[in-house]
């Protein structure tokens, strides 16, 4: 009944879809750029304390104002972007590099003992309240960006393992996979040659989503003091610093908060846009 499922997206929807992707990609690009530029240039030294300039509201000299130590907020946001993005990016990388092979392997041994062990292991990680485990890990190994990466990355592993296992299982039912088996190809080779290329779209979309979740998680860890350590600025700790001063200097809380919201929003919009752009092909492949 393919005729039944044809449905025309409304014009409104089409515009929103393509615009959503453009807005998302634009926002993401701005923050990635800010992070990269911060390596060579920031308006001020992000760690430079200048008590005489403290708690300035945004002005021509300090576009986003200054904090309670007189540090330039824009510079701190730029350097903070570096930390946030690096942590989230590497954590997604950890998830993909460990999770995808596990998922593909489990799918190729469907129903076997190893499949069972991998999937139960995944369930186990899901049973831990994610932030709690992150807190435990950073508590054990000490706070810092690297440990934040490990803590967040561990939770990405089951996400990618499940996703790739599920997608691979449905691909294993495809006849072209059986044709490859008839040609004597091993399961590992088939996973690499036929399955992995056909799930990359899914991985890209999920990757953007996990990236944005990573940024949120990093901010949370940094907020409770378990992220990147001073003097390196980080968005989450800027919020922590702002908390006690929120009634006298709300911009201290608004600037980093909005930065996080816009970054995550941008990534999510881009992910949704990618899904719409990549999925129709994927669906055609399936049908």
């Amino acid at each position, binding site marked *: 009944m393919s005729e039944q499922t044809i449905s025309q997206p409304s014009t409104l929807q089409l515009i929103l879809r393509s615009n959503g992707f453009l807005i998302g990609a634009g926002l993401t690009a701005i923050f990635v750029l800010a992070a990269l530029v911060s390596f060579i240039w920031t308006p001020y030294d992000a760690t430079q304390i200048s008590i005489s300039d403290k708690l300035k509201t945004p002005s021509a000299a300090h576009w986003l104002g200054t904090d309670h130590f007189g540090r330039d907020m824009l510079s701190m946001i730029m350097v903070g972007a570096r930390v946030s993005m690096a942590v989230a990016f590497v954590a997604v990388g950890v998830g993909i590099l460990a999770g995808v092979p596990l998922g593909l392997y489990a799918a190729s041994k469907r129903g076997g003992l190893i499949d069972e062990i991998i999937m139960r292991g995944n369930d186990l990680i899901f049973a831990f309240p994610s932030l709690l485990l992150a*807190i435990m890990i950073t508590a054990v190994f000490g706070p810092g960006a690297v440990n934040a990466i490990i803590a967040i990355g561990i939770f990405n592993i089951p996400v990618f393992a499940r996703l790739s296992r599920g997608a691979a299982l449905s691909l294993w039912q495809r006849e072209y996979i059986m044709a490859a088996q008839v040609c004597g190809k091993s399961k590992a080779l088939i996973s690499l040659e036929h399955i992995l290329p056909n799930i990359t779209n899914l991985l890209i979309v999920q990757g953007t989503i996990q990236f944005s979740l990573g940024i949120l998680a990093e901010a949370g860890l940094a907020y409770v003091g378990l992220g990147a350590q001073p003097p390196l600025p980080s968005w989450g700790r800027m919020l922590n610093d702002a908390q006690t001063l929120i*009634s006298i200097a709300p911009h201290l809380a608004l600037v980093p908060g909005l930065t996080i*919201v816009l970054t*995550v929003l941008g990534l999510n919009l881009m992910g949704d846009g990618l899904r719409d752009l990549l999925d129709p092909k994927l669906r055609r492949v399936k049908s």
Partner: protein
Amino acid sequence: MLRYISKRLVSLSASLIVASILIFIVIEIIPGDPAAFMLGINADPDAVEALREQLGLNASLTSRYFTWVTGLLQGEFGISYTYRVPVSELISDRIVISLPLTFYALVLSTLIAFPAGIYAASKRNSLGDVSVMGLTQLGVAIPNFWFAMLLVLVFSINLRWFSAGGFPGWDQGFFPAMKALTLPAIALALPQASILARVMRSSLLDTLSEDYIRTARAKGLNRRQALWRHALRNALIPVLTIIGLQFSFLLAGGIIIENVFYLPGLGRLVFQGITQRDLIVVRSVVILLVFAVIAVTFLVDIAYAIADPRLREGSR
């Protein structure tokens, strides 16, 4: 049904056992000797040794693990290294804040998400749908602790409707206590509600394109009836999973939110435990939370079986 439930029960208990071993090992490798920590830097080594003996730290790993687990089964968590009181006492003081907060947030999240998701799905592609989805997109992007700070700024500092933090205690009456938990619950619930609403919508849209919806329409049901009578119950099945996961998110998210509102809950207890090397407190709270998550997972499994007859009669 019974077979399915007992199967899940066995599998979840296994998870719990493995989790307890993991927690025990992780806590064991935390650097620092609690005995030395408790007695300060200049403590006499003999005194430290005596304290280690007294705390049972000199026994072998396995025997310490079993002592801990058997204690857990009897509701005894041991004595806090720093507070010198039974951990169970500490926990029972705090859990009456953390658990109600989590459930409060879960209820709020569900109450917001269901109508929003159902509305958006039934008015697919309309202005209403697009606005609801735009709002949820924003909601998903907001860090809950920042949202909590904004709530404090608006409702406590400017409008003075709520106090900015603290907890009066349940003995001050139900409503004052709930009032103190309201802002934290909203801060926790809104981002989760956004996720749930999106899942609800897409799950409903998926079921609405199923063949049996067409069957229902061919029977003479209108769109509304088809949605309420046939699509909703089927759409709930994946939504239940998300609700189960949300419990875990909310419980953990509560740890941070408690900090924003200075609520004396389990989250603050854990942080104090970590900074003061109070291992017994940390691992007791963590195992308790894991237990809570697994218990809720079990409830979700039962809800699954009620919603889906295929599971109930399972492998007959």
